[in-house]
């Protein structure tokens, strides 16, 4: 039986096409992936991300347990701040990528839907093995989480929610009250646009979304619902990794280009093998590719140079914003330099590609 988010009825009422994703019934699209993508870049979109795991950690040893589990230096985070981090296995492979937030009385870890059970168990094991005084509780199914993303979101959200969004820094958050229910509003997202992510109780979510979206059914509505399809093409243009594509248990964060989220100066699970990789330099590199022609590279497509395999595609799409075929790939470090001409084998026929800097798309500040 698939799980449904508190916004299931809203999706159906908006005409969503629902699909299975990580055990949840989620909207893949409402009107069309490309249309929803462009709406997000031009104005604003609302995404249901309630399927993502929301784990609370409290207690005197909570920070120590997280310090051991996360690649990011937890001691530097102040109340009201969030940070992107990795959770690594003892070999330095990525168990998940998460956002960790420091609340006055607890920590919040937001993880991928597909890794929720694994991360819950891992955090519990770390606590038990280390003897940390910490309580870990899964709040995923008692809350909802929505992301509002796009250049007009920050100006519009203040009309509905009594929060001064402009005063919140990127990766900062604040709490507020809506219809007697507490919510947390984070200035973050996964689209390459400015915007917010909001966690609210399940019972309040549907009402909040309705008032946030207001006159969403009008053709020129500034904020419209968007599905997981557009979320994927948006994050790819923004050069953001997706677990299961750019990240996995046999891939390390340094090779993925995420050294900025790995504090090798502290002790955490996976630190030793990562120090070796940092010292020798990663053998491969995660790169952006621009392909000639309209064809799309898919995960697993082989990347070649002079007929020899030098890499593998992790994600690809036809970029709605740039109107060209783009992809991310792991490529041998020797062939990963910007401007390198490579071949991508697409079901037996070759498309020419060039290594380009990530992200593919950067919003105007």
């Amino acid at each position, binding site marked *: 039986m698939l799980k449904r988010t508190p916004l299931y009825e809203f999706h159906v009422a908006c005409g969503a096409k629902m699909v299975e994703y990580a055990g949840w019934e989620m909207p893949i699209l409402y009107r069309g992936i*490309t249309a929803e993508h462009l709406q997000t870049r031009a104005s604003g979109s609302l995404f249901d991300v309630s399927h993502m795991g929301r784990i609370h950690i409290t207690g005197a040893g909570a920070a120590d347990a997280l310090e051991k589990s996360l690649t990011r230096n937890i001691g530097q985070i102040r109340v009201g701040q969030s940070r992107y981090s990795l959770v690594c296995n003892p070999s330095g492979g990525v168990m998940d990528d998460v956002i960790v937030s420091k609340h006055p009385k607890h920590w919040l870890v937001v993880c991928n839907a597909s890794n929720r059970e694994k991360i819950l168990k891992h955090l519990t094991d770390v606590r038990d093995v280390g003897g940390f005084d910490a309580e870990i509780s899964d709040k995923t199914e008692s809350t909802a989480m929505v992301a509002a993303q796009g250049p007009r979101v920050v100006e519009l959200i203040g009309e509905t929610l009594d929060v001064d969004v402009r005063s919140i820094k990127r990766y900062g958050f604040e709490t507020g009250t809506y219809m007697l229910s507490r919510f947390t509003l984070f200035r973050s997202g996964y689209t390459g646009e400015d915007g917010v992510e909001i966690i609210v109780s399940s019972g309040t979510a549907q009402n909040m979304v309705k008032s946030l979206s207001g006159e969403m059914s009008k053709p020129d509505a500034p904020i419209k619902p968007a599905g997981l399809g557009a979320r994927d093409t948006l994050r790819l243009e923004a050069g953001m990794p997706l677990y299961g594509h750019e990240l996995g248990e046999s891939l390390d964060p340094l090779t993925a280009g995420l050294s900025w989220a790995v504090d090798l100066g502290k002790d955490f699970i996976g630190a030793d093998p990562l120090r070796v990789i940092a010292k020798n330099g990663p053998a491969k590199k995660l790169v952006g590719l621009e392909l000639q022609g309209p064809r799309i590279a898919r995960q697993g497509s082989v990347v070649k140079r002079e007929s020899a395999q030098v890499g593998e595609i992790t994600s690809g799409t*036809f970029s709605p914003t740039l109107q060209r075929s783009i992809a991310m790939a792991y490529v041998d470090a020797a062939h990963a330099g910007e401007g390198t001409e490579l071949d991508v084998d*697409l079901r037996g026929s070759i498309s020419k590609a060039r290594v380009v800097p990530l992200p593919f798309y950067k919003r105007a500040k």
Partner: protein
Amino acid sequence: MPVPQDRKYLESHEWHQLAGDVVTIGITQIAADELTDITYVKLPAVGAKISANGAFGEIESVKTTSDLYSGVSGTVTAVNSELTTNPGLVNADPFGKGWMIKVKTTDANPLAALLSCDDYLKKTGH
């Protein structure tokens, strides 16, 4: 979802319409909706020989890449070149302007083995 009665189908979602000894082939609305926004259609050249149940081309969307299958054998007499610059026609009008190829066939009853409209819907769970 409307599926025209005046043609026959493969379970892999291609429609076939017979006029004289020429069969026009395209994909159904169900398939176009499932693929989502179509970005590229690779079709054979005019004069190419194709065979029943063989792949004659490829279709790509934002989501996935799939083979296109023919239910008949014959020679390609026309391809819809508009799809090169406007592959979205397949999403917008799959049974009309989004047609893909015309095949001249020598079979006496070329569509006999293909699915009726009802059987296609049943087989594909619609």
